[in-house]
Each structure stands twice: as C-alpha cells, then as structure tokens.
C-alpha cells in the first residue's frame, strides 16, 4: 500500500442524500413500488464497507473498450455517429482513482437495446452489442470508443423519451464507493424533459452528468470526443480518527 493510501485509509465522507435522487420519485413511476418507505439506517463504515474487490488490468480483452468493434463481425463496424468518451474517475478530494473498473452499456444509434425485453421498433444493428469496460489508469483516466446512442421512447407517462445516454457502473476501492449513474450529452433538449434525470433534485447536480463536446480531443475526420469526469466518495485521513477503546 502506498503512503497516500495509508494516509487516506479512513472512513468515507457521508453520502449527500440531498444531492442524490431520493428513493421515491413520483414522476418516475417504477420507483413508487420499489422505494423503501422507512428511513435508511445510518451506520459508521466498517471494514465491510471500506474494502472492495480488486480487478486486474489483465482481465481486459483488447476490444473491451471499443463498442464499434467488440461485437462486430470481422472487418465490420457498428453504424452511427462515432464518438470517443474519455475522462477521469476522481474522488471528492480531487485525487484520481486508479484501477477502477468501469462498465458501460447503451442503446444503439437508433435508440434500440440488444435485450429480450426491449419493445421499441427501431432496428437492431447486427454489429453492435452495447457493452464495454475499462480499468482506469494511474491518474484515474479512462477512454472508450462507441456510437452516440439514440434517444428512445419508454413506458412511463404516455409520451416520455429518454435523452441519449450511456450507463456507467463504477467500482472504486471500497464497496462504499459503488455507484451506477448515466452520462448525458451536451445540448440535448430531452435532458430537461426526462423524469429519470429529474429525479435528481438540483440542476447543478444534473449538470455534472452532462458530458461536454471536446473538439480538442476529437479525432479529425474520424470521431468526435466527449469528456466525462466521474466523482466517487472521498475518504478521511486516519491520523486523528477516533477508533475508540481497545483498538
């Protein structure tokens, strides 16, 4: 364990439940029967929350981070607007989080998921599976290539459409940091209309999930780039942490 890890091996900063969506959000109807009614029980971190699984870079295949080709037939590619999504995984103190497993999934360019329960009529792309994964580098950086997903209608109110989005699942270094969220695209007018986006209480928090078009990292004549940083919970230094008697 490095010196920095030792210094920052304490408990995690409290999750700000006023910043995250509440469990019960009336206009996102599925949440109504799936939200606990009783209060969460607050508990100090123990080792059970301050530890987490380890994923090695060696588990990754060469095309895991390339959704254009990782499901495509040899020599073929997914259809759609080609984009590179890149950024860093940081903790709340601003430090990069290395060795963080990121899993992503998304609809194809027409807004259709490759899933048995999908009911939207938009066509499947035979060369697009819709999943990818990567592990962050020493500075918390990651990058993957894909097509820009299409918006799609979904059964909630009579006429709800999801903005274009990519789902992100993240492991930090501890199970307390486990997070699933979604990335949206700068300039999409559907963001403001979406009941799932609007489960998030503040527009300031929503803005942190909107990736910015980044022409400086775009590959000319090839793929546009979107920058998306993700923040996981930070942790305290242990030096003055009260551990109580006998420990």
């Amino acid at each position, binding site marked *: 364990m490095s010196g920095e890890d030792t210094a920052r091996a304490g408990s995690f900063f409290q999750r*700000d439940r006023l910043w995250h969506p509440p469990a019960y959000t009336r206009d996102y109807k599925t949440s109504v029967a*799936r939200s606990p*009614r009783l209060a969460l029980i607050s508990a100090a971190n*123990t080792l059970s929350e301050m*530890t987490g699984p380890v994923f090695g870079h060696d588990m990754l295949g060469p095309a895991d981070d390339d959704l254009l080709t990782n499901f495509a037939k040899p020599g073929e590619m997914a259809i759609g607007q080609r984009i590179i999504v890149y950024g860093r995984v940081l903790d*709340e103190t*601003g430090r990069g989080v290395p060795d963080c497993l990121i*899993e992503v999934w998304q609809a194809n360019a027409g807004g259709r998921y490759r899933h048995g329960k999908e009911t939207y009529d938009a066509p499947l792309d035979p060369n697009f599976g819709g999943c990818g994964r990567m592990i962050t580098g020493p500075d918390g950086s990651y990058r993957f290539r894909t097509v820009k997903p299409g918006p799609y209608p979904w059964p909630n109110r009579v006429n709800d459409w999801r903005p274009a989005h990519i789902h992100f699942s993240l492991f930090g270094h501890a199970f307390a940091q486990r997070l699933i969220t979604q990335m949206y695209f700068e300039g999409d007018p559907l963001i403001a209309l979406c009941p799932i986006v609007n489960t998030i209480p503040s527009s300031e928090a929503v803005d942190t*999930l909107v990736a910015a078009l980044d022409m400086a990292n775009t590959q000319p004549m090839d793929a546009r780039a979107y920058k998306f940083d993700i923040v996981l919970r930070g942790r305290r230094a242990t030096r003055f942490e009260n551990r109580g008697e006998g420990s």
Partner: protein
Amino acid sequence: MAQKLDLLKESPSQTAGPYVHIGCTPNFSGISGVYPEDLGSALVNDKTKGERITVRGQVFDGTGTPLKDALIEIWQADATGLYPSRNETRGKADPNFTGWGRSPGDMETGEFVFETVKPGRVPFADGRAQAPHITFWVVARGINVGLHTRMYFEDEADANAEDPLLARIEHQVRVPTLIAQKTGTGEYRFDIRLQGEGETIFFDI
C-alpha cells in the same frame, strides 16, 4: 467569507434501468463473444477454504411482486474474516476466494443464487467482533440509488446477539429482516423486501 474547501461532489446516482444486465452480465443477456464470462459469476473454486454455503433469495417490491430485472451483488470476507481487498491490512485473504459475487437473478423467477463460503468475523470500527455477515447491494429499474443491506445467519444467534451494528438498530422488531433462514445443510434463504410489510433494513453507510 472563509477559504474554499475545494471538495468535489460525488456524481449523482441514476437508476441502473431495465437493461443493466447488458452492461454487467452480457452473456446472461445473450450478448456472447464480447467477454469470456460474466464477472462475479464464481466466488469460489475447488481450493477455496471454508464451509461451502448456498444463498438464495428474491427481491420483492411493495406489492409483493418479485423483481426480474434486478442486479444483486454481494461482498464478504473469507472464512477467516479477511477481505480480498487492497484495503485489507490485517493479513492476506484466501487467494482462491474473490469475496465478490454478482447475480442477474433467474429470468423467470428473479431468484438469485450465490455459491460461496460462510464468512468469518470482521472487526467493527471499535475493534469488537461483528457477527458473520454478507453485504448485499441491489440495483434495478426504479431504484434511484443502489441499496446497501446485510445478510446475517440464523444459526449464529450468539454472534448476532453481540453484533455492534445490529445492537444499535432502534426498531429491533426489524432485525429479523437481515437474518437469512437456514433451509438445509449449508443452505440459506435471504429475501429482500424493498417496501411495505417486512421491509428490509437498508443502510446509509
């Protein structure tokens, strides 16, 4: 005005949605050939030390209907109480145990199954021993922030009685929602109720 703390805010959670299995268990979803196997499908191998157990259960919504689109993850210590984690400083955990499992649930019933070992005891923040437990994390369509809970063991009554976390739960009448029933030798059942009668205790940790 005081100085700025310059802390960042955690990225806000969004629901895992109905297609979480595409990203987290693609082979289960019928998307084969991208990854050799779904992550978290095996916690143990032939050499793993400890008492083998099987944990089964379902996740129910507030109407009593089982979820068929959830993703359930578990995280637990090995048989001696050590975590296979970079943050484990007390010793080296069993190299044949991953500690982490992930289940998409059965397509028809939503039932999850984990083949694992019974975890050893892990210290609480003040050094007292916690009862053996498995951390559960549940995400699904309609769950806006992943839900953390814990599974304890019915046949560890003495350890449960002195568990520091269980002891500080105000409504002791709810503690049984965290205790898996023993249904056979090495067989446990742990149902999770998101809402309503018998609502499982979820933690803000």
